[in-house]
């Protein structure tokens, strides 16, 4: 965990309001786990004030570059989207604990389930799993056709299914519809996406090994401010912090 001014190497929209940002810097050498995130300062002064948590989508240690994919949502990401190649960005990271690779063995089958802007961290995960010899199937859900990204990239790493809420591309409906419809089997499931999706997966696979990456509004991003806590089952005062204990949790570890 460090603070570094990283240089923008590439920054372009890749779907409607979805941007791909490649940052260069020595900080990349500290980045290891898929599912970790960086906390990015988007404003030059005090408005917007807080950093924005964004997941690592691709870690390229050789080139000392990492990729982030983000959706232009509110004020902060709108400002971010205006930054140009060559400019520097203040990045704190890498933060949090990512998806456990050791949960699955070479030759086994992993299901990667991503929803919308939860898709990016699964790409680095897919790469690492494939490298380990794990068979990867990716199921990616999007609202509409025009916000789909990285279909080809995932396809190059294994089987891929796409669902859109409006049916404009792939299966109409949700990622869970795909899993059900196709009767996909797996040893381990890794997921990142909106809370309703995560809850549906939790319910659907009570006996499976499932890892979920959560989102919560953050202050510090490093575990100091207690902004991002979630409850632990059957305990009134116990908690986990999404930023430093997560963002990836084993299903059942925390209350969704």
């Amino acid at each position: 965990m460090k603070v570094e001014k990283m240089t923008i190497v590439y920054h372009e929209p890749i779907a409607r309001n979805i941007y791909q940002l490649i940052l260069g810097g020595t900080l990349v050498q500290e980045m290891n786990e898929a599912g970790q995130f960086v906390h990015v300062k988007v404003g030059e002064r005090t408005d917007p004030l807080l950093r924005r948590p964004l997941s690592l989508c691709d870690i390229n240690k050789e080139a000392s570059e990492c990729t982030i994919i983000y959706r232009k949502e509110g004020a902060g990401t709108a400002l971010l989207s205006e930054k140009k190649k060559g400019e520097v960005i203040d990045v704190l990271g890498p933060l949090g604990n990512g998806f456990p690779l050791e949960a699955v063995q070479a030759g086994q089958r992993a299901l990667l389930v991503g929803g919308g802007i939860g898709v990016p961290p699964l790409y680095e995960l897919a790469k690492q799993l494939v490298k380990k010899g794990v068979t990867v199937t990716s199921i990616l859900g999007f609202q509409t056709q025009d916000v789909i990204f990285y279909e080809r990239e995932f396809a190059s790493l294994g089987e891929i299914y796409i669902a859109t809420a409006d049916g404009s591309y792939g299966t109409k409906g949700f990622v869970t519809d795909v899993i059900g419809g196709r009767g996909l089997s797996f040893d381990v499931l890794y997921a990142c996406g909106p809370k309703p999706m995560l809850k549906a997966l939790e319910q659907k696979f009570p006996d499976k090994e499932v890892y979920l990456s959560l989102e919560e509004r953050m202050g510090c991003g490093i575990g100091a401010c207690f902004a991002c806590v979630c409850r632990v089952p059957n305990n009134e005062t116990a908690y986990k912090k999404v930023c430093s204990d997560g963002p990836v949790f084993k299903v059942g570890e925390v209350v969704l």
Partner: protein
Amino acid sequence: MSRLAVELPGLSLKNPVMPASGCFGFGREYAKLYDLSQLGAIMIKATTREPRFGNPTPRVAETPSGMLNAIGLQNPGLEKVIEEELSWLAQYDVPIIANIAGSTMEDYVEVAKRISQAPNVHALELNISCPNVKKGGIAFGTVPEVAAELTRLVKQVSAVPVYVKLSPNVTNIVEMAKAIEAAGADGLTMINTLLGMRIDIKTAEPILANRTGGLSGPAIKPIAIRMIYEVSQAVSIPIIGMGGIATAEDALEFFYAGASAVAIGTANFVDPFVCPTIVAELPALLDELGFDHISQCIGRSWNKGGPTVYCGT
């Protein structure tokens, strides 16, 4: 003696810069980034008698140059704070100011009695002003007689000097400060957060699950400066100033207003190195402005004669 050293009741500070309560946990996270012994002191997260989970999430929301929080005093409770956190912090050469909170006067007294005996706790900070706790909290921070009574009770049991943290959500901050001084407080810390709210445009619901929260960050700096300016002229106990400090220049503005030390809250989230950075930058700023010692800046906006409150020599 170092030009940044200041001497406050219970606190011999090598420098007057410390993280504010609730914005630094118990230091563990920042200890991964730098040596905590660089800090003048540490104000630890509010500690209550029993462990508390706090409020539901979302607990923070961003505002222009500020943020709202409604953490709700989440903490592991008195016992664990003493056994696990304070003892861990003892490895650093840094005095701890223990921020304590409660729902009743007895809560405060109990926590004060116990925690003030921890060897590295050099002072208490009574959090009588947390806007995010439903029960009691508000009266402690807004009714001078209640605040004074609480101060008296805590003073009776505390083994270390007692600082009281003022709420800015009052009509007359000077009246509060005077009542607390008269009740025997050794110092004041100010300001806590201003009660605020944000509403989500799409859902029409408050963004915070707790609906309202405390506003902190640069947005509140001019309010903090004004209050410290007023209070420092009306009391003779020292003030640890806070509210929106993010740079050495900001810190200096607080000294000029009348603070004898400063605490930094929200800015830690923006720049985790902000505290040591300000410590490192202050000497050059003093040089530039022609001061030998930070104490020459204290209260300078209303008293050119130099230090009138507390100084480090």
